[in-house]
């Protein structure tokens, strides 16, 4: 099954990656090559096989519900693109 140019534009939008027509055309050809490679896996009969999401069968650890982090916002915001009064600034979202 081949992807269409519309598929490429749709997934680029979902991934929030700006893409122009020339990039979409180039991506289409290369993605279809990659999905050609992936197709081999799709043909395998995996009836009754449990999906393996992780290398080892371990369960998530739980910990006490206690504060473990200290306030470091000044340090962390010192590398932010745009900060004011301890807030990360982005373009206005609600008019």
């Amino acid at each position: 099954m081949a992807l269409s140019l519309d598929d490429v534009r749709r997934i680029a939008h979902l991934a929030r990656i700006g893409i122009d027509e020339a990039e979409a055309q180039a991506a289409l050809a290369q993605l279809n090559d990659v999905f050609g490679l992936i197709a081999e896996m799709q043909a395998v009969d995996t009836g009754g096989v449990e999906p393996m999401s992780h290398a080892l069968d371990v369960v998530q650890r739980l910990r006490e519900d206690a504060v473990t982090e200290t306030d470091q916002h000044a340090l962390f915001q010192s590398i932010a693109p745009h900060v004011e009064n301890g807030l990360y600034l982005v373009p206005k979202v609600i008019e």
Partner: protein
Amino acid sequence: MDNATISSLSAELAARKLSSVELTGHFLSRIKALNAKYNCFVTLDEERSLAQARAADARRSAGSGQPLTGIPIAQKDIFCAAGWRTTCGSRMLSNFVSPYDAHVVAQLDAAGAVNLGKTNMDEFAMGSSSETSYYGPVRNPWDVHTVPGGSSGGSAAAVAARLAPGATGTDTGGSIRQPAAMTGICGLKPTYGVVSRYGMIAFASSLDQAGPMARTAEDLALLMTTMAGYDARDSTSLERERENYARELGKPLAGLRIGLPKEFIAEGASADVVKAVEAAVAELGRLGCTTVEVSLPNMRLAVPVYYVLAPAEASSNLARYDGARYGYRAPEYADLADMYKKTRSQGFGAEVKRRILIGTYVLSHGYYDAYYIQAQRVRRLIARDFAEVFERCDVIMGPTSPTTAFRIGEKMGDPVQMYLNDIYTTPANLAGLPGLSIPCGFDAKGLPVGLQIIGNYFAEARMLNVAHQYQRATDWHTRTPPGVE
């Protein structure tokens, strides 16, 4: 000093015949003289490195030195190090100075090792040639027109060119082992969960694992003993007793059963690579090992499965780069959505964008079962193949990479050809098994060939001894690239 192993440098530091300031200064000088040729370091901070060296010397003087105290180690630029620019090979993090240390960095620091600088790599570790870096391609010291492999190509080239005695790497689909093979050095990808991923910039979290790169198996054992260990900050870190990874070194190999998967040779390895690997297995036979032919029937599916799962996890992990809190932000934008799109379009390179698009697609509505869940089912089949094989042998051996180093630019236009480099390395990541690459010869062009040793879960110490015994009987690991003495 250039060719000395970490073990021998450690002995000299302990005997006070050498200071860490001298040693660190020596490697910094070599880097400054030769980095333009190989492009293996992206960030140096001489003052910081030398301050660590002085502290290490003081610690040695006070009698509280450990084996790695004063040893300069190059850090792959995927590891966050407090106060160091940490780019992960990307424009997206070109201005990111980490506010904290990765667990691996903190462990090495606590042992008194010196951070020699940050090494170049494929952007976000996505690549098999170290060509996708925003900071330009790394060059292979054996032939500067060829790639050093990837993604830990900067670390590999630095160790091969004797710009560092050891380095850290990370391996999601072969990124320690394959560059180690292509540059004639040694690299270990541990069992998943043995080394903490905390502060290691995430690519594919169910596969990512950090490990050491050096010139001998003995040095890998030294580094690994410090790098490994439980860390509560990584939810997949395993709660196990600390190990001395050098504890098996010196044991005879008599009776060791080597499994030789027929698929490792059948799936397109070049003749020179096959010849070198067969000679290495024959040498191990003379050391008392026996061989048995085994089969990993689903191995050919590892690359297709990997290129579904790794991009799927990457598309999720890399969603954090939005230009809002740290890293690159596009200079001009109309609104918030436009800020995200322009930031990500400009901040990521072509290969990273390609993998995010693949991952987004396989996780999208209507395709999730057909791609992502199917890939997870086949992943289990691959892991089962290994479990069956390890009932008949102790270690598996074969090539690390189907070919030796290829020319810079040769595969950049063809992602599928690039991805097929990973055919022998991705199976161990998918199963979570430890894998090791050591030099075992050269091709007709004089480029190094790597022997891959895959062990069962937690068999690192035993695998390192297999490599160590091989290195006692051979001298491939002592060969130096042209112009490096």
